[in-house]
């Protein structure tokens, strides 16, 4: 099968299997792209998740564009993106055209209350695996805790937190490098 078609189908599959959007999609993306196909490694996955949080648009779309680009340049990015949105476009159009009051059915409401619980559990799993690539030393563990507290307790914008953390680590890198150089000169 041509690579582009295969990529379209893989991302369409991801699009159809994900409920709850955003972070709820992460475990599914990780399973399909990292564990099953090796199209990304865990570190790249963590990097892309971070980029998705400080760039405009939908995280799943960002991830699709990046993976597509990595495999087949610009056209790959576009094809993967079209793949991930394709099922939504079909399903939601059908619902908008024919189904009314779908969300008021008791069975649908109960099912989604149940699904929300498993999404919470899946988020725990994602955090555990990202922790392994993110919290490698004391400094990054502290950074994780500080950002978490800032987001939960005082509701700081995620964009600010992400960009701030990146700048902080660039400054830290410069500082460490400078000190190492000074140490070497003495």
């Amino acid at each position, binding site marked *: 099968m041509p690579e582009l078609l295969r990529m379209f189908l893989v991302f369409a599959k991801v699009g159809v299997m994900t409920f709850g959007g955003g972070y709820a999609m992460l475990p599914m993306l990780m399973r399909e792209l990292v564990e099953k196909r090796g199209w990304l490694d865990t570190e790249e996955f963590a990097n892309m998740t*971070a980029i998705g949080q400080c760039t405009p648009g939908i995280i799943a779309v960002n991830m699709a564009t990046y993976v597509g680009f990595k495999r087949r340049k610009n056209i790959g990015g576009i094809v993967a993106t079209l793949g991930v949105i394709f099922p939504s476009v079909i399903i939601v159009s059908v619902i908008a055209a024919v189904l009314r009051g779908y969300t008021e059915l008791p069975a649908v409401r109960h099912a989604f209350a149940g699904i929300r619980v498993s999404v919470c559990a899946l988020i725990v799993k994602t955090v555990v695996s990202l922790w392994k690539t993110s919290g490698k030393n004391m400094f990054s563990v502290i950074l994780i805790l500080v950002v978490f507290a800032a987001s939960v307790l005082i509701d700081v914008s995620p964009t600010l937190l992400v960009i701030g953390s990146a700048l902080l680590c660039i400054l830290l890198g410069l500082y460490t490098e400078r000190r190492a150089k000074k140490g070497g000169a003495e």
Partner: protein
Amino acid sequence: MIVLLRLFYEYFLIGLFSVGGGLATVPFLQDLAARTGWFTLTELADMVAIAQSVPGPIGVNLATYVGFKISGIPGVLAAVLGIVTPSVAVILIIAHILMKFKDSKYIAWAFNGLRPASCALIAAAGVSMAQLSFWSDGAFNLKAIILLAVLIPPMLKTKLHPLVYIAFSAVIGIIFKF
């Protein structure tokens, strides 16, 4: 035709300015409803409920619904292409830069900060989702907490597909009336 162009344009702006995806587009849509009268706020609430309860990214689901409501299938295409175009462009640019400067120490340092921040933000999103699931009407939702306790161990120890847990908890949700 004018409506379609307008729809594309409005959604292009939403795609450009809603950082963090999904539900971040809702405030923009409230504003759009007020300015254009294309849909009411009650209709918007229904659309959000449906966008969250079908598969796929919420932002795309919502764009599809709004587009369909305004002018059928052509409306869907205009809104969906509008919302994804800015993010595709931005990510392609970032991907080009990353490939070109992949050995740069500055980029490596930046990612040392980005990864922990991202991990923390996902945990924070989990907390707000947990509030919704485990705390209702001023009391703990015991059924949901038991389900969570049942789900976590196999999830961390086995490699079952995430969809298995989602299907399982949907069935449990229906049987035990969550």
